């Protein structure tokens, strides 16, 4: 797959013509976080431009600026050399910019042609739309039945519909946001052929946003690499290789952090865990395995709507005091794994065993009762209740702590809450402050405080540092490490590789709901992990 890169001179290799899009000095802040910092980007006709970066690197924000979903704080946009502002997606459409969305913009209950017609103007002529769908299908090899109901199609076919919907508006500039995250390798392959067609046939410019190294190498003419809101590198695809890209994408700062993890705090941690037989991580895992593992997941399968396997034959053991990282591209089953361990989904096959006892995963509070605490991926989804107070959120899992005969004692509630607020340094006006009045970092501390207060045997931390600023990240990382030292088994589900490399003793990689690889920390490098995550064999 890697050697495929060499043959890609690209259609636009004959030298850059006039730029079709110029983004100049784009800056966008959200609260304290700078999503895009002085970003310049130039796109040419007849070229596929790859934008590579990790989750949260600012790629999506940059593209949202381009299609008018986000207004930049600073910077300017030129289309065909003319300066313009893009207020909303309609304005972008008029300028010939279209985006194939990561999360589909399709309506399941409508047919293919109806979806394609959605959002246009003028009279609805089904025959005309159908013909056009058929014509586009033929031209680009995107076969699909115009009368099929979209809900009955596979992810790959749905994406075809999405692409047809975009192409029907005949855009000059086509943005693909993580297009392969829902596709099988063969489907991805077909998609890239289509991209070539699109570019070659009508001198369109295509942007491919991705964090998968091999597909960027495989399918683009030029690559821009983003990290933490900035552009760190750009180069023609011929001059790039997978290793240098991985390094550029993950970046120097990260290796600094990993170094710190490797040489600094990590040593202390291992020294503390000496009786466990620390040092070699494999060994520590095996020692605990011979005892009862704190958490054992056996052949677990969870089916989603329409029978798709969200988790497919997952097996995983987690020993006391061990931190296991679950790495992977988002949308490969991590969310379901988190939900499973939060008592939110029942199993279709397999077992979940905590401290030797099987748990019925779908029944309310079963995992919490068994001693599994969870910092959920999206705290607003199942982690906190925004309309309740800080104190109430802190006591959600175990209100009986502050109650006698089923009545909660106000003074005890406040006392317990205040103690936790102090211990975890939660910034709020007091125990009675409504949770929504807290910043994201402090809301996350509320979750952490509550989950640790339950004195769990297992702690599941899903994307625990997402959206937090640097200080809050440090805090969270330290807390997780201390928790493990205290003998709790920690499952760290994260799409941030550096976080996993910094914390985990052992790393499993998930892809398409399966575990595709398991590495000790010693074996794991950014490159090996990146390759596994990207679907290439290590």
């Amino acid at each position, binding site marked *: 797959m890697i050697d495929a890169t060499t043959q890609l001179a690209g259609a636009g290799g004959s030298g850059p013509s006039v730029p079709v899009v110029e983004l100049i000095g784009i800056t966008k802040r959200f609260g304290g976080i700078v999503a895009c910092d002085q970003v310049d980007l130039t796109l040419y006709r007849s070229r596929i431009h790859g934008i590579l970066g990790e989750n949260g690197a600012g790629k999506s924000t940059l593209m949202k600026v381009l299609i008018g979903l986000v207004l930049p704080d600073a910077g300017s946009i030129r289309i065909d050399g003319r300066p313009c502002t893009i207020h909303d997606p309609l304005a972008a459409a008029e300028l010939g910019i279209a985006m194939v969305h990561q999360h*589909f913009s399709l309506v399941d*209950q*409508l047919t293919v042609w109806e979806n394609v017609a*959605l*959002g246009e103007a003028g*009279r*609805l002529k089904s025959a005309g739309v159908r013909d056009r769908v058929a014509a586009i299908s033929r031209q680009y090899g995107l076969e699909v039945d115009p009368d099929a109901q979209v809900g009955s199609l596979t992810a790959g076919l749905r994406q075809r519909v999405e692409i047809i919907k975009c192409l029907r508006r005949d855009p000059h500039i086509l943005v693909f946001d993580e297009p392969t995250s829902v596709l099988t390798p063969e489907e991805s392959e077909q998609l890239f052929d289509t991209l070539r067609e699109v570019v070659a046939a009508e001198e369109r410019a295509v942007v491919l946003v991705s964090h998968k190294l091999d597909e960027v190498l495989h399918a683009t003419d030029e690559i821009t690499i983003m990290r933490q809101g900035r552009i760190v590198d750009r180069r023609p695809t011929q001059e790039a290789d997978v290793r240098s890209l991985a390094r550029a994408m993950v970046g120097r700062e990260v290796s600094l952090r990993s170094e710190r993890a490797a040489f600094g705090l990590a040593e202390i941690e291992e020294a503390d865990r000496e009786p466990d037989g620390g040092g070699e991580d494999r060994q520590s895992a095996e020692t605990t395995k011979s005892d009862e593992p704190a958490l054992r997941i056996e052949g677990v399968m969870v089916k989603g709507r329409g029978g798709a396997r969200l988790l497919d034959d997952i097996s995983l053991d987690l020993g006391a005091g061990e931190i296991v990282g679950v790495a992977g591209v988002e949308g490969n089953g991590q969310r379901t794994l988190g939900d499973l361990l939060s008592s939110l989904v029942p199993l279709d096959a397999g077992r979940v065993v905590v401290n030797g006892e099987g748990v019925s995963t779908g029944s309310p509070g079963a995992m919490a009762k068994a001693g599994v605490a969870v910092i959920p991926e999206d705290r607003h989804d199942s982690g906190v209740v925004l309309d309740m107070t800080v104190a109430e959120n802190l006591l959600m899992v175990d209100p009986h702590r502050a109650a006698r005969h089923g009545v909660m004692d106000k003074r005890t509630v406040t006392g317990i809450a205040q103690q936790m607020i102090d211990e975890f340094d939660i910034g709020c006006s007091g125990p009675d402050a409504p949770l929504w009045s807290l910043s994201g970092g402090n809301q996350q501390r509320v979750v952490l405080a509550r989950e640790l207060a339950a004195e769990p045997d297992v702690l599941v931390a899903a994307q625990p540092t997402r959206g937090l600023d640097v200080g809050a990240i440090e805090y969270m990382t330290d807390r997780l490490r201390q928790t493990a030292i205290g003998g709790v088994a920690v499952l760290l589900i994260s799409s941030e590789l550096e976080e996993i490399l910094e914390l985990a003793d052992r790393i499993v990689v998930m892809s398409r709901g399966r575990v595709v690889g398991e590495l000790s920390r010693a074996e794991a490098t950014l490159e090996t992990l990146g390759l596994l995550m990207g679907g290439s064999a290590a």
Partner: protein
Amino acid sequence: MLIDFFAAVGDVLSSESTYINGALFAALLAFAATGEWVAERSGTLNISVEGMLLSGAFAGALGYHLAESVAVGLVFGAVGGLVIAAVQAEMSHRLTADQFVVGLTLNILIVGLTGFLDREIDPRADYASEVEIPILVDVPLFGKALFGEPWPFYLLYGLVPLSWWLVYRTRWGLELRAAGENPQSADVSGIDVNRRRRQSIYYAGLTSGLGGAYFLFARLATFDDSVIGGQGFIAIAAVIFGGWTLWGTMAGCVLFAGALSFQLSLQGLGYELNTELLQALPYLVTIGAMAIFARWVRPPAALARPFIRGLK
């Protein structure tokens, strides 16, 4: 006993008036249910349809009172329905107030308001003239019921297919269906979801207002605040019973109106029977249908869920 029962049923079914009454009620339900169906397809469980019917009936009477014309009365009726629709639509899909609170309040408000205005103004109306369609009207049993009705009845023959065409064959219909099924996707595709929803409530107001006025001119000729008496809720039941398809909804209207007229005819022929059961029938049948078919027949996925951009 059993033989008596069959004799009674036979008598009723062979009586032309059963069909005439049935068609009359079915038409009232159909006017309301057609609009209600459009509103529900766009995502609103529009319980103010009861108020729309009543408002339409009163405004119809008022129109006739002022102009001595059934046609003017119908126009007034449509406007009467639209007024209620305006409050419902603007409050629930612009101001994002709870659609049930608005609908419920409107239903109570409009009973009070029409009752109040009725006593203050006391509008007088009259029956609409009957129009018989030659030849067809002579078909035994059904002829008079379907082709010998007061003339506003025939509006339905246009309105129902028109509604079907609007919803399934026009861009507007496509967009409102998208708004009812997946407002987020519709929004991303560049559709103003709440606007489509408001428009479909206005459509419901239009048809229900017409329906209320039709009923006034076809059956009552004088207004009273109890004339609608829950028929709007039966129309809602018909939409649910019909599994949110137009033809199913119409089948529900015919079935429920049939039950009502069956009961009236039985009484008219001097048979004793359980009227309560027959009156509860539409609701019982609908609850039963929901309980049985809830797995297969899905309401529009976003039914009764408000859409606010940026919130799931």
